[in-house]
């Protein structure tokens, strides 16, 4: 397989994997196998996959509460992700983090933050650190349209800009923060327009098109690696699911229409990528189906792995609190 095809097929595979992972999450929440909160990424897969495809293994990412897709796109082990969701000791974080806190530092996944926009300053710091170390790694920080209104976002962007740090601020504008439309909470038309305030490029990207994401990110990465500083990418995208699984039941008033959701489903990122692969003669339908079935197997295996893994032991509770341990007060 040539390099390009390999890349494109990996992108397809990762999008399908993330989709299947989150379809499973829905089921597990319904059956109460998965407890706590779960925010599905379904419909937004092209953003993480396109962006991470532009990264090296030793580059860094940070995420948010809706971060099943980000670590998988960066190459995180789906079995560890699934085990973490079930609170098992074999999970990314030994069960201590759960759905909103997947991280694998060994491959640059610096973790997700349940506090909205809270990972942005951390991403800036990772970029500062890596720059001070004389390395040419870059950091991609994923955050939502809602997060863009936090003060942390302003401070992070300004710091990255004045220090010319290798950060890509990747705003996943899925158009809502829970039930609040971004049009009501952001004063400008595009969040990328705010880049002007930091003297950095601001680019609006079609978040349903993995290749568009890949290309825009590749440019931003090149800029960052060359020491030219940060970029703000706004990926226009959409979540098909409710803000978090189960939330639909307690919503009193609708905030978006069925038509709107349907219209976005017509621009499904996996469909778009598949159609491109087939139209351009890069892959056959059979190859695509093959990927789909491999993904199904991978998810099955991950589920089995997670289910069969042990829970952490009570003795493990206080471990991990401190690197240099202290007695529990």
């Amino acid at each position, binding site marked *: 397989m040539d390099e390009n095809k390999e890349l494109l097929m990996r992108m397809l595979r990762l999008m399908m994997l993330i989709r299947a992972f989150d379809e499973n999450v829905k089921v597990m929440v319904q059956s109460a196998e998965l*407890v*706590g*909160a779960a925010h599905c990424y379904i419909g937004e897969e092209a953003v993480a996959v396109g962006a991470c495809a532009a990264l090296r293994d030793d580059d860094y990412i940070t995420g948010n509460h809706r971060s099943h897709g980000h670590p998988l796109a960066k190459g995180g082990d789906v079995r560890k992700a699934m085990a*973490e969701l079930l*609170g*098992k000791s074999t999970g990314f*974080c030994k*069960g*201590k*983090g*759960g*759905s*909103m*806190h997947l991280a694998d530092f060994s491959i640059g996944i610096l973790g997700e*933050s*349940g*506090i*909205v*926009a*809270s990972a942005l300053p951390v991403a800036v710091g990772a970029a500062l650190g890596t720059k001070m170390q004389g390395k040419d790694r870059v950091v991609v920080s994923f955050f939502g349209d*809602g*997060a863009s*209104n*936090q*003060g*942390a976002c302003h401070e992070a962007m300004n710091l990255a800009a004045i220090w010319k740090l290798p950060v890509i601020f990747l705003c996943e504008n899925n158009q809502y*923060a*829970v*039930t*609040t439309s971004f049009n*009501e*909470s*952001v004063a400008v038309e595009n969040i990328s327009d705010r880049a002007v305030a930091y003297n950095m490029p601001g680019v609006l990207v079609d978040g349903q098109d993995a290749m568009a994401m890949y290309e825009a990110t590749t440019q931003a990465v090149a800029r960052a690696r060359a020491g030219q500083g940060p970029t703000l990418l706004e990926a226009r995208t959409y979540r098909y699911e409710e803000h978090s699984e189960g*939330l639909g039941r*307690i*919503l*009193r*008033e609708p*905030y978006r229409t069925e038509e709107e959701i349907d219209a976005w489903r017509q621009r499904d990122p996996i469909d778009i990528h598949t159609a491109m692969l087939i139209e351009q003669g890069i892959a056959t339908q059979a190859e695509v189906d093959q990927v789909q079935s491999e993904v199904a197997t991978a998810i099955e295996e991950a589920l089995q792995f997670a289910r069969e893994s042990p*829970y*952490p*032991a*009570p003795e*493990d*509770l*206080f471990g991990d*609190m401190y690197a240099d341990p202290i007695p*529990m*007060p």
Partner: protein
Amino acid sequence: MPEITFVEALNQAIKEEMRRDESVFIMGESIRGGIYGVTGGLSSEFGDRVIDTPLSENGFMGAAVGAAAVGMRPIVQSLSSFMWVAMDQLVSQAAKMRYMFGGQVNLPIVYRCGMNYGNNIAAHHTDRPYPMFMNMPGLKIAIPTGPADAKGLLKTAIRGNDPVMFFEDNNLSGVRAEVPEEEYTIPFGVADVKREGSDVTVVALAGMLRRALAVAEALEEEGISVEVVDPRTIVPLDKDTILKSVEKTGRLVVVDPAHKSCSVASEISAMVAQEGFWTLQAPIQRVASLDCHFPFSPALEKLVFPNEEKITDAIYAAVA
């Protein structure tokens, strides 16, 4: 008396006060849709007085101060874990402004802070920071333990003229209990003896009160008579009721879902060890959350915060 849930009681309090006083309004994230239950149905009745905010807690919690300073009575809805983001406005403005400016301004604001724990939502969403706010003068702090208290205390908070941090233990959300139909308020600074007893005093906060009552019932059968005290507000704190109870029982257990170090359990213990020392017949027991973050895993989380077993053991230790 009708039985209603904690959430319904809060909703009633807000509705009644918004009807009574036009200057009361409420803001928070996605509250018009009634996401977190309490605000359901408010926007249809009160229109623009129910405001959906952007994700800018420092901004809008500070805006509450400004609005209060010009005569409004804002209620702000959020979660305790999001208070960190807004800490500057809560501390530097809400808590300090009146004093710094020599009492020129009243700041009638209610910050409603939900608290999650015990529902596998991990460290970022499981804060119980009322002890920290108790260490910061200028804020009144109420922590209801059930529907009737929730309604009465919230009405007092809304009518009062000072900033109030109102901590709502989300473990109580669905709890149902009798709530008076007629209008009532509950004063701040008056603890409630929820159960009388003679062998040991248990002061319990937030959702822990129900557990303390359950333990008290169970121990009754073993012949241990437990008095259960609900401070209801921690600023002001009704020291007298606690001291009097300890005077009677000679033994004290404080149950607090906050982390143990510098907790309200610590404060009440210290207060009694200073002001009620001679009435004590045994060491003061604190039952609080461990000084450990809340892990996600269902296998571990339950080990962190107080439960009936830990409360029972502490009572045994106190009466030993």
